[in-house]
């Protein structure tokens, strides 16, 4: 079918061999199929290969920062990132937490439940949707980068727009040690 007509090449020996005249048409269907397949492949790979990025804004590191914000302790949740992908969290302050510190893990069945529950509770007690939950994230030295990204992702998933990354303090480390999340 897909053959070029090569007859008319002229003087064969004897000159009597006459090939049958064939159409010069080539069936392009398969070729078009292949071409579109490749197009699809290239289109998808060029757009999908772009890495995803998560924006992170840190507060200004002013040395002489006088404006300390005072926030109610019933609105703050502190999340400590410990070793082996574990979390410990409590509401309020470290020396007199409003809820007992609780060990949790990442993901849908872990910290997200607490985040969703408390962000609703806090709005209910303050009675003002703009005064929601404030989360302090304190990564310890034994947490890794994946934990850090995971907890930021949890903030995005549970729609908490007020969170800060804070340096971990000694009492917090002591708390982690007590519960075996820090060696």
């Amino acid at each position: 079918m897909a053959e070029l007509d090569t007859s008319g090449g002229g003087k064969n020996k004897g000159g009597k061999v006459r090939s049958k005249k064939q159409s010069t048409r080539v069936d392009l269907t398969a070729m078009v199929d292949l071409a579109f397949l490749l197009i699809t492949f290239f289109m998808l790979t060029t757009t999908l290969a772009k890495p995803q990025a998560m924006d992170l804004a840190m507060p200004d590191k002013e040395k002489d920062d006088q404006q300390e914000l005072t926030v109610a302790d019933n609105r703050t949740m502190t999340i400590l990132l410990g070793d082996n992908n574990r979390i410990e969290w409590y509401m309020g302050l470290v020396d007199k937490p409003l809820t007992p510190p609780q060990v949790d893990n990442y993901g849908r069945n872990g910290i997200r439940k607490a985040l969703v529950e408390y962000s609703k509770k806090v709005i209910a007690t303050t009675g003002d949707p703009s005064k929601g939950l404030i989360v302090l994230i304190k990564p310890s030295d034994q947490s890794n980068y994946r934990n850090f990204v995971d907890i930021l992702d949890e903030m995005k998933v549970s729609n908490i727009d007020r969170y800060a990354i804070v340096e971990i303090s000694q009492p917090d480390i002591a708390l982690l040690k007590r519960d075996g999340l820090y060696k």
Partner: protein
Amino acid sequence: MPRIKVARKSTAIDMTAMCDVAFLLLTFFILTATARQPEPLPVDTPASTVKFKLPDIDIATLTVGQEKVFFGVPGQPIRIRTLELMSEKYQMTFTDEEKLRFSLMESFGVPIGNLKQIIMLKGDERNAAGLQPGIPTDSVGQRPSELHNWLLSARYATKELNNVDMRVSIKGDSREEYPSIKKILGILQEQNINKFSLITSLRADEK
């Protein structure tokens, strides 16, 4: 009543034009696709559910893994200008050939003293595992760290040439311990870069 007779036509369609278009598009996509450069420091980025694509230009990438930091900026003119600014700071001179070779390097991770050796290596030799020790992140006495200077130079170069502020993205390995990330965040914050992007891979929705 006479019945209208529909002339029977062949079902074969002329595919030539369609084929032309398909191959034209194919050529276009192949040519516009940029080949992925091999990375000297392979990292496994953590997954997240964010769906924000990273821009291609005017964004520096800090690759962090195995307690090493690699640095890279896109755009050849910017790389050359960055190198010139750095050579002024460290009183080194680079020939035009070295600058050109440097501008083709996607990212690198050596102290500036060893930069010339790395520049003169071939591409695949350069990316050998463990060859590049990472950019020093410790400040020496009063002098800021080399990473600090690289970032600063790249920011100046981007502003000079493209008149936009350079953004910074961090591409960290999942298993990287937090202290080395904290150190880099500290260096960025010293320069008042308070907003940056963390490169993640996409996680399938788990809802």
